């Protein structure tokens, strides 16, 4: 990864966080889901969001690339403020990779076309260049031989690895993972986490919503515990997962160890 170069050329400034969220308020109708959340993520940092379901983890993640609109607060990605204008959104989204719980591969396209479509349509890369990049990434996630397969013929773990390759093909500044292993059979979780760990080791900026505590321990620079529409605990994996200070943090940890 060429972190040094991108820092210089792509704005955001040295020392400024790559993702900066301030006072985020998100409501679904009358229901408040996020109540004044602040979050800074530095370039190269791996941040893991944990917490009970319904705490707003996925919603927070989806706000970063504008899949959810916030009612108050501000979001900056690589120095640019997120505003809800079609062209600007498309531009900023092309710099943010997103991986979903349900994989969401395009079922009518071959694996290779899943990975080349946006490279061509959004970045304007020539077909051959897009294919070369796709092949390279498929090799990286260990699926080079599946280029011409259709998603329906792949296992869940394979589909999710393709989805990661699809996001990486856009050369994103940051990768968002929304419970990437929650829809997988237990024996397929490992292969996806392996790819994610490698990515983290290579210096990719990652924000990961997950219930995989092993991943949080091994790969996270920082763990955030969300509960009650807010971030209630924040620190290194050891701090948050071994010695939480907040009541909510302790309660969540008890829940985890009991199961």
């Amino acid at each position, binding site marked *: 990864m060429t972190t040094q170069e991108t820092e210089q050329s792509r704005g955001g400034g040295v020392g400024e966080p790559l993702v900066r969220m301030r006072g985020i308020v998100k409501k679904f109708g009358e229901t408040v889901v996020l109540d004044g959340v602040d979050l800074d993520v530095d370039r190269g940092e791996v941040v893991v969001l944990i917490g009970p379901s319904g705490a707003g983890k996925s919603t927070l993640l989806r706000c970063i690339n504008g899949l959810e609109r916030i009612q108050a607060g501000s979001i900056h990605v690589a120095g640019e403020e997120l505003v809800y204008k079609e062209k600007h959104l498309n531009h900023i*989204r092309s710099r943010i990779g997103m991986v979903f719980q349900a994989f969401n591969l395009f079922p*009518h396209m071959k694996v290779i076309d899943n990975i080349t479509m946006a490279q061509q349509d959004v970045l304007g890369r020539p077909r051959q260049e897009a294919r070369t990049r796709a092949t390279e990434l498929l090799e990286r996630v260990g699926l080079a031989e599946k280029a011409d397969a*259709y998603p329906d013929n792949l296992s869940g773990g394979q589909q999710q690895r393709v989805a990661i390759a699809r996001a990486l093909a856009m050369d994103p500044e940051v990768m968002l993972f929304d419970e990437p292993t929650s829809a997988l059979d237990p024996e397929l979780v490992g292969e996806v986490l392996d790819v994610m760990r490698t990515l983290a080791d290579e210096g990719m900026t990652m924000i990961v919503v997950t219930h995989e505590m092993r991943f949080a321990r091994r790969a996270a620079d920082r763990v955030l515990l969300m509960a009650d529409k807010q971030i209630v605990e924040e620190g290194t994996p050891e701090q948050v997962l071994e010695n939480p200070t907040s009541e909510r943090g302790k309660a969540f940890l008890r829940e985890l160890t009991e199961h």
Partner: protein
Amino acid sequence: MNFFDYIVDTAPLFLEATQVTLRLTATALVIAMVLGGFVAAMSMSSVAVLRWIATGFIGIIRGTPLIAQIFVLYFGISEILLLQAFWAGAIALAIHNSAYIAEIIRSGFQSVPKGLNEASRSLGMSRLKTLRRVRAPLALRAILPVLGSQFIIAVKDSSLVAFIGMTELFQTSRNLAASTYQPLTMYMIVSLYYLAIVLVLTFLVNRLEYRLSAHRR
């Protein structure tokens, strides 16, 4: 004269009438697809008034008999505008089918999982590009089989245009039934013609469906 003699004897008249039926149905369906597309777009619009208009249109058309629609158009409109039976029939069939086709198109688009739209938009694909590359192709695959059966219904429904004096397949069988005093034979023969058209249509739709379902094999 046995049944087969009648088939041979009536073939010239029926074959000519088949062309009329095919022209009539094809014209009606082309218009119905365009109109149905518009109505479907309106019914999925974020503008409430457009949705109401679409819902109202679909409700009225599906809630009234086709034969009444044909008569209203032929006898009603021809007071103001001299409409040939062919065009009155084609337009009535088109309007009628457009309501059903609009519903087929709408449900086709709604069958595309929301997550695929989000995945495409997350890659930076615009609304329009997402429609062209993801939503429309997937909706088409859902729409096609249902659209095929709507086309089959349209072919058979076109027989109602006989009642405004169009000499299409069904009217031809009525004429022959009267002139030969062989109603049973003539209605059986005309049924064979409809059956043949429907079988060819089914074959064509199946082939298209097969070609579009590469991802499921």
